[in-house]
């Protein structure tokens, strides 16, 4: 569908904002809405949405995760397309839901999973709108590839394409694919290792001289920024949705 064709009906996208964005980074949510609207889609936010259930799945409680998975499926089933500003939560839906659920629930989950997209992947690969008209004219940026988006969903290219189309100068850090050490409950149970990993990421990003480190998962970013507030290393840490939305005309 050509999203630029004014005669076409605007496609509708259901936003899964995620519990992390909802609770600690709501501006990432509003930025996501702005980007989707700039891409020419109508955004709806199903009111009954909560959390994808990943914390329970990764903590060894698959039954609890399955309760949230079934809730997600029920809430988002009516929508043609589901978009979320989190590679990790989308990986939960796409990779784990079909493995967590069985019987008819699995069939339903598989159908929903196919229609659920991470924000940057949706914009670039589904909507074909890498160029949203945003203009980034600040200092150079460096991109942190959050793990689940990168390795489970195969992202990585999408964020760079969006930033590149907005004219941003990207300076890559030593290994943008290295884990930042968040890992959900890992950050709580393995504080020392998790923090050492964050420090390495902050040092690598600082070494690029970038003004800003851009990521696609609020969990990683909260962990990095929270650490940065203690150690003072590294550039500003921002979600890609915010960086792009602020640069929209």
């Amino acid at each position, binding site marked *: 569908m050509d999203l630029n064709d004014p005669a076409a009906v605007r496609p509708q996208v259901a936003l899964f904002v995620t519990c992390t964005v909802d609770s600690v980074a709501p501006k990432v949510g509003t930025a996501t809405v702005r980007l989707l609207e700039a891409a020419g889609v109508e955004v709806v936010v199903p009111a009954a949405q909560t959390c994808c259930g990943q914390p329970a799945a990764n903590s060894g409680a698959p039954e609890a995760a399955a*309760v949230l998975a079934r809730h997600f499926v029920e809430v988002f089933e009516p929508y043609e397309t589901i978009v979320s500003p989190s590679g990790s939560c989308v990986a939960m839906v796409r990779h784990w839901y079909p493995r967590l659920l069985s019987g008819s629930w699995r069939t339903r989950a598989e159908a929903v999973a196919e229609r659920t997209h991470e924000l940057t992947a949706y914009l670039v690969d589904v909507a074909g709108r890498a160029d949203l008209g945003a203009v980034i004219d600040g200092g150079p940026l460096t991109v942190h590839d959050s793990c689940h988006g990168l390795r489970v969903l195969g992202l990585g290219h999408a964020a760079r394409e969006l930033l590149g189309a907005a004219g941003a100068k990207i300076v890559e850090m030593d290994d943008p694919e290295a884990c930042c050490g968040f890992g959900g409950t890992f950050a709580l149970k393995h504080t020392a290792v998790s923090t050492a990993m964050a420090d390495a990421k902050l040092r690598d990003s600082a070494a690029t001289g970038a003004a800003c480190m851009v990521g696609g998962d609020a969990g990683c970013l909260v962990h990095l920024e929270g650490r940065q507030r203690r150690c003072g290393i590294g550039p500003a840490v921002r979600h890609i949705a915010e960086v792009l939305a602020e640069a929209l005309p």
Partner: protein
Amino acid sequence: MTLAARAPAALADEHLQQALGRITDRYRLVRARARETPDTDDRKHRAGALRREILADLDGWIDRVTSSLERVGAVVHRCATAADAAETVVAIARAEGSRLAVKSKSMATEEIHLNAALEAIGVEVIEGDLGEYIVQIAGERPSHIITPAIHKTLGQVADLFSPLAGHTLPVEREALCAFARDHLRTKFLNADLGITGANFVAADTGTIVLVTNEGNGRMATTVPRVQVSVVPIDKIVPRLADLGAILPLLTEHATNQSITAYLSMTTGPRRAGEIDGPEVLHVVLLDGHRRDLVGTPYEEMLACIRCGACLNACPVYAKVGGHAYDSVYPGPMGSVLTPLLSGGTEGRDLPFASSLCGACTEICPVGIPLADLLVRLRADLRTPGPVVPARVGRTPPGRAGPQAGPGPVSSPGTRPPAAGFPWPGADAALSRQPWYRSLGWSIWARVWSRPRLYRATLALGRLVTRRRSGWCRRLPGSGGWTATRDLPSLAQPGFRRLWTDREHRR
């Protein structure tokens, strides 16, 4: 003591941190090579399928490899447990009157704690691999399955070797290697017992395959009068010719080499007219809880070729090193294997020692979904005792161990590498778990699957985390979070409020 408790000391160890930098360098080279090789996925798929071919009929393949080994003159001992295997080797050493045993590098002998068992009956045991030799002198265990002494700096090795040399050795690679070569050569030439593991054993020819870079495998299999090879049953490859597909992946992922300096193949003991090789060859086929995994999601681990690439790729391993795992096998593969191969007695915390970044899954040359298995183990380890996962698909083998003789015979089929695994009935499993397991998460799920209650908990969270700066410096009950990081206050208003306000304005 858990990995979390051992980690701070490892992180503070400057020598270790310096040494571990090499691990990450190697990982990046291996990763770049895999990405630049155009047919990597095809090769991985082919090697993975070959590894999994044995899983469709593991007992059948154990029988086939046994008869092939016996046909070429080896004495085969089937051992159900690590302790059986160690006792078997001890009995051989005793019967042969062995005094000096030299080893080629072997993780299987680490697994059965063979050195201690042999030393207890007065056999001198010398590790023939340089890295293994270093950790042996240090009184440690290998910290890496491929590069056992990766945690040591050159200076530390000089400090370990100098007392043996009787003078101060320079902190130079060549000098230290020369000392070890001289020292080990004498041992190799005088040894009466050669001990090896096996990288692979071919079921059609009964050939034991050893991959080394220093020739310790060649020495241990040619000089001593008696050879004992400890071969875990997951080392079976159907045909010797299959090595063509598997060996390059092993060496590329282990050491970024197209092929290692030495490839040693032993097919039976010395035959009439041959000038070297052992007069007697014993092969100890070790189960060690491996057969228990067949038919479960964890059978994927039996495809592992012990290349160590997942250790190098793991950001946790790269920060704490192998000793922090306190297990024979460290890193991601070790975190999966340790609880399984110990029958649930060791390493129960290890599956949690991962950020689940998935670098292990990505780098694995035979397509084992390591990160998924770690997630799965976290659930199965809630129940105390041995890990008893739900079985999927095929019928498991009999429970009596490999001594029980021929298992059910079925035609071997090929299985492609699995892309993850089903988690049968996780949504129904709540009723099968005792009510108190994961009670907290069960309550959480009941609350957060109800939008009103979900919003109520966020409102409560806002109260608890409310700070003028928008960040909590300290928050009791936040686990370890605020020990090293600020925690963001829950936003007021949250996204939901922002959205409904906007909708009202329209």
